[in-house]
């Protein structure tokens, strides 16, 4: 059988809370309440809960602050303009450098069939080169 809870009115609740929080509450009289016995048992409940809570320490792990700051850095701290430009420059430099390396490899493996002077038309050999062929067209 379910017991119906005794609900105190708001004024009595406020009074009970202030009694429970006062230091001299142990000698409190509950005769001012409509149901003194009920008020006293609730008063004891409040004091017990609070006393138990005061005996215990609640907290997070010792690394909590570091973890929070680490997450915030990852989520919100965008690089400043100098860092951004330097990152972009590094990307462009890396791309350009790898392109030059690839061209040099291509020149080496084609045994001189393609070389810089042949491409620009400054080749002194007899073979027709790219630039000369363009001129011959006209």
């Amino acid at each position, binding site marked *: 059988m379910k*017991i119906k*809870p*005794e*609900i*105190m*009115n*708001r004024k009595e*609740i*406020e009074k009970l*809370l202030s009694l429970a*929080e006062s230091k001299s509450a142990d000698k409190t009289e509950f005769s001012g309440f409509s149901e003194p016995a009920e008020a006293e*048992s*609730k008063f004891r*409940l*409040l004091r*017990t*809960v*609070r006393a*138990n*809570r005061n*005996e*215990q*320490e*609640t*907290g*997070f*792990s010792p690394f*909590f*602050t570091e*973890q*929070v*700051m680490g*997450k*915030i850095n990852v*989520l*919100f701290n965008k690089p400043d303009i100098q860092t951004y430009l330097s990152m972009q420059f590094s990307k462009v430099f890396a791309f350009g450098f790898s392109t030059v390396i690839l061209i040099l490899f291509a020149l080496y493996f084609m045994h001189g069939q393609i070389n810089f002077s042949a491409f620009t038309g400054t080749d002194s050999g007899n073979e027709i080169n790219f630039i000369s062929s363009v001129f011959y067209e006209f």
Partner: protein
Amino acid sequence: MFRILVDRYKNPVAAVIKGMLGDCPEAEDIGQDTFISLFRTLANFRGESALKTYLIRIAMNLSLNELKRRKRMLAKNVKMDSPENYVQLFEKPQQENRELAESINMALEKLDSRQRSVFILRIVEGYSTKETADILHIPLGTVLSRLSRAMSEMKILLANEN
């Protein structure tokens, strides 16, 4: 600067979250989310309430969301790591108080989440009635009526435990 805020308020935040959810693995994550959320919204903080009240409100809302999520998970019969055992208000109780602490934990666990939030803030953590109302965004009268119900329920639940 923000590190000082985290250091200053992490214990009250932990107390509220662990009071609501118990000493579970999610409590630490929700604590971190609370401060990240504060960092995200700090620019919008208008100073209408104390920073601590604002922070505890975030912690309480995230805890209530987590309780709702657990309820949904349980409704779907998804096995979790005994979520009902998570709600432990008192960490590592002393031997002599263990039984009482466990009884209170079990009674608290059975309270409705709205009553539990009022009870944790007002009775366990000792916030004033006005602060509790501000944190939960409810009128003062509602705090008192929920508190009255919560105390009555707790009394009956503890009597049944014994």
